């Protein structure tokens, strides 16, 4: 767009091609790529492009999203080969001269298009007892120093979007592995000074499908939309099991 034709305050728009991995359990066909041309603004995110497709071109396109602002963790998907939240990925940050590839996250069964069965993921989360276990009954709150709170601050940020777990090569081939997200949420309580069940959680994760499955590929750390140092958290849990270092 040249400077003359550009109105003041106008947002430049671009034509991009999206290849979306489609799968319909009812048509008996294999998963396949389908391409859509979409006119998008520089301020648009991949989620906006998916909305445009669903609202203007093909209402059967199926994907999850809820808050659309990177908080609920519903719209994790594989964008150009990497796990991202569609609502946090600006199209202008991708290479717009190339098609944008959008696929469901890997390692969980696809139900339709970009929607996967999250139940195994949630089950692994439940299995690490992701809640405070404390026997005391204080009249007010349980006190904690700023340092004690800072110890597990990083792992409180998880939104359970599954971007980390489904970026893990170990999880792709071994669905029994607890996965990074479950370990992150166990870490959040293991290193919480108010919690009394660290040993229980460490015992759960000291399993052949527990932390020892981690091969430190760092895909999870790279994929996390909240910037959690996932691999580091897993390494800290390994240390806690081995030498009791908290």
């Amino acid at each position, binding site marked *: 767009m040249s400077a003359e034709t550009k109105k003041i305050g106008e947002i430049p728009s671009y034509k991009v091609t999206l290849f979306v991995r489609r799968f319909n359990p009812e048509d008996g066909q*294999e998963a396949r790529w389908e391409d859509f041309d979409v006119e998008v603004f520089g301020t648009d995110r991949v989620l906006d492009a998916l909305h445009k497709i669903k609202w203007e071109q093909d209402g059967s396109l199926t994907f999850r999203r809820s808050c659309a602002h990177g908080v609920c963790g519903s719209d994790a998907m*594989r964008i150009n080969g990497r796990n991202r939240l569609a609502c946090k990925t600006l199209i202008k940050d991708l290479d717009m001269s190339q098609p944008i590839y959008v696929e469901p996250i890997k390692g969980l069964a*696809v139900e339709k298009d970009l929607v996967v069965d999250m139940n195994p993921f949630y089950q692994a989360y439940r299995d690490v007892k992701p809640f405070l276990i404390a026997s005391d009954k204080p009249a007010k709150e349980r006190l904690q120093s700023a340092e004690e709170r800072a110890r597990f601050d990083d792992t409180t940020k998880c939104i359970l979007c599954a971007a980390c777990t489904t970026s893990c090569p170990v999880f792709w081939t071994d669905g029994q592995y607890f996965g990074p997200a479950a370990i992150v949420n166990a870490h959040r309580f293991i290193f919480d000074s108010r919690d009394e069940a660290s040993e229980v959680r460490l015992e759960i994760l000291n399993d052949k499908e527990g932390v020892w499955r981690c091969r*430190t590929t760092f*895909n999870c750390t790279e994929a996390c939309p909240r910037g959690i140092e996932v691999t580091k958290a897993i390494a800290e849990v390994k240390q806690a099991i081995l030498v009791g270092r908290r």
Partner: protein
Amino acid sequence: MAKLPAGTLYRGKVGMWSWVLHRITGVAIFFFLLVHTLDTALVRVSPEAYDAVINTYKTPIIGLGELGLVAAILFHGLNGIRVILIDFWRKGAKYQNVMFWIVVVLAALLFIGFAPRHLAHVFHWNV
């Protein structure tokens, strides 16, 4: 009926590709060790049989294979130290990326020291 997904290759970074390379070199070294154990065990059968087998190794193709073997061992050994540091050193996860490049540089330096001398033996160069 639900289906498992297929599609593009996951575009992981240094951490993932170093892990892939670590596995490939690991399996390759395993097969070398298997053959190596067998040919060395031949000396118990008869020294002549051992000599005969070892002599078949003195070809340029095996010589280039040995070059690859040393490259694989250098990477696998040094990257193994990196993996240990990631698990046992507090700052290991933070410095995994730079440690990978240190591994590559160290492996390359050691390989450059080894390759000319080895190739001279294989191809009977007079140096």
